[in-house]
């Protein structure tokens, strides 16, 4: 591969893994959020703030998340395997779980968005040049609303792992990208769901940027036999806990009316 004088050679997995271990060791225990400053993921170097975040109380604008409803989302958007041309290739699965806030209250009737690679690890994206096949019957994006108890549910296919250029022989573990809203603007979350037992998790600088094991575990779905469907699909359960709300539940009940 051609290198210019300004492009350092790609680091080895061994040196990336060593860097991950060192930073995790230096991070104080109890930090359950993702580190923004995490050099093993090279693109963070120029994209993480170096000044401290300013903590302040949310004003009214930040106390209300945007509202979505049945005028925004069609129920068929929750099934990523629906395609007029035919069935996508891959392992069909149902992914379901409950969205609650940091106080354990269900996040009701709120938008959940999902996007992912196909079974071969390729995205329908013009900048994805991984030489794996596109699937003409799989687009890889869906949406749904949570129900009155905070449950979401998607039918899709299991994505494949894919290579990226962070370091030499870098592979992302198979994952689903999720976008979630709470009841407050402050509870916004974009994250990734992973699969249990994936050996790539230990090597991945994005997943490992969460330095606390208990917090990393929260991003890994559980195989759930009760969600699996006879002669149709395997099932995974993945719950989401957003940050706590600032407005009191009483104010919330009023705003629900």
């Amino acid at each position, binding site marked *: 591969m051609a290198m210019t004088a300004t492009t350092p050679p790609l680091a080895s997995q061994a040196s990336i893994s060593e860097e991950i271990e060192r930073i995790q060791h230096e991070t104080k225990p109890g930090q359950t*959020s993702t580190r923004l400053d995490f050099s093993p993921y090279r*693109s963070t170097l120029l*994209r993480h*703030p170096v000044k401290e*975040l300013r903590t302040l109380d949310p004003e009214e604008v930040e106390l209300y998340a945007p509202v*979505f409803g049945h*005028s925004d989302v069609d129920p068929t958007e929750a099934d990523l395997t629906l395609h007029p041309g035919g069935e996508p290739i891959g392992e069909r699965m149902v992914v379901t779980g409950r969205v609650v806030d940091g106080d354990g209250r269900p996040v009701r009737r709120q938008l959940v968005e999902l996007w992912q690679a196909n079974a071969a690890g390729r*995205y329908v994206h013009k900048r994805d040049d991984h030489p794996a096949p596109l699937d003409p019957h799989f687009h890889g994006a869906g949406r749904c609303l949570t129900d009155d108890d905070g449950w979401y549910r998607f039918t899709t296919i299991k994505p494949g792992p894919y290579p990226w250029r962070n370091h030499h022989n870098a592979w992302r573990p198979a994952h689903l*990208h999720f976008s979630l809203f709470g009841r407050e603007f402050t509870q916004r979350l*974009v994250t990734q769901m992973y699969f249990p037992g994936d050996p790539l998790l230990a090597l991945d600088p994005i997943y490992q940027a969460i330095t606390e094991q208990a917090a990393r575990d929260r991003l890994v779905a559980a195989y759930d036999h009760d969600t699996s469907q006879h002669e149709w699909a395997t099932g995974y359960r993945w719950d989401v806990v957003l940050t706590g709300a600032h407005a009191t539940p009483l104010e919330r009940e009023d705003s629900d009316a």
Partner: protein
Amino acid sequence: MRDLVTTAGQTVGPFFHYALPYDGGPHLVPPGSAGAIRLAGTVYDGAGAPVPDAMLEIRQADAAGRVPVVEGSLRRDGVFTGWGRAATDAVGRYAFTTVAPAPTRPGVAAYFAVTLFARGLLDRLFTRIYLPGPELSDDPFLRSLPDDRRRTLVAERDVDGNLRLDLRLQGEQETVFLAFPRHRDR
């Protein structure tokens, strides 16, 4: 729930464009409608290079200072929902068409609440874009910031009322990014 460890964020990655941005996302009101303004700027990294794979979401009050709590942001039907989403373009620019928000109560300045996502940014960032005006000098939060930091949050307004503010992820003129009290529970 068994335990309430908060679900951590992960980067939006490089491949969100076919999934998250949508037709009409950046247009909180139709371009050219009465009172419509443009809110635009460029997102820069720590080396001063534009960020072509970032996404912004804004939440705002209307021109009367009311925060709409109504559905319809994904399939807009003439209703002002006070929320929009825009990806940056190939040269890092974002642009919304909206109305200028008014303050939600006396004594504070009007602003857009902003969430910022990008490849290489491991978790979302919150910030605010304030409208220029005399209220700025009385706003308790803005007053708590040193001059050079406050400047990173205040848009410039042109003669047509259009607003412009660049966001900087890192460096000397880094944007003031925000955390809210319940983000630090654990």
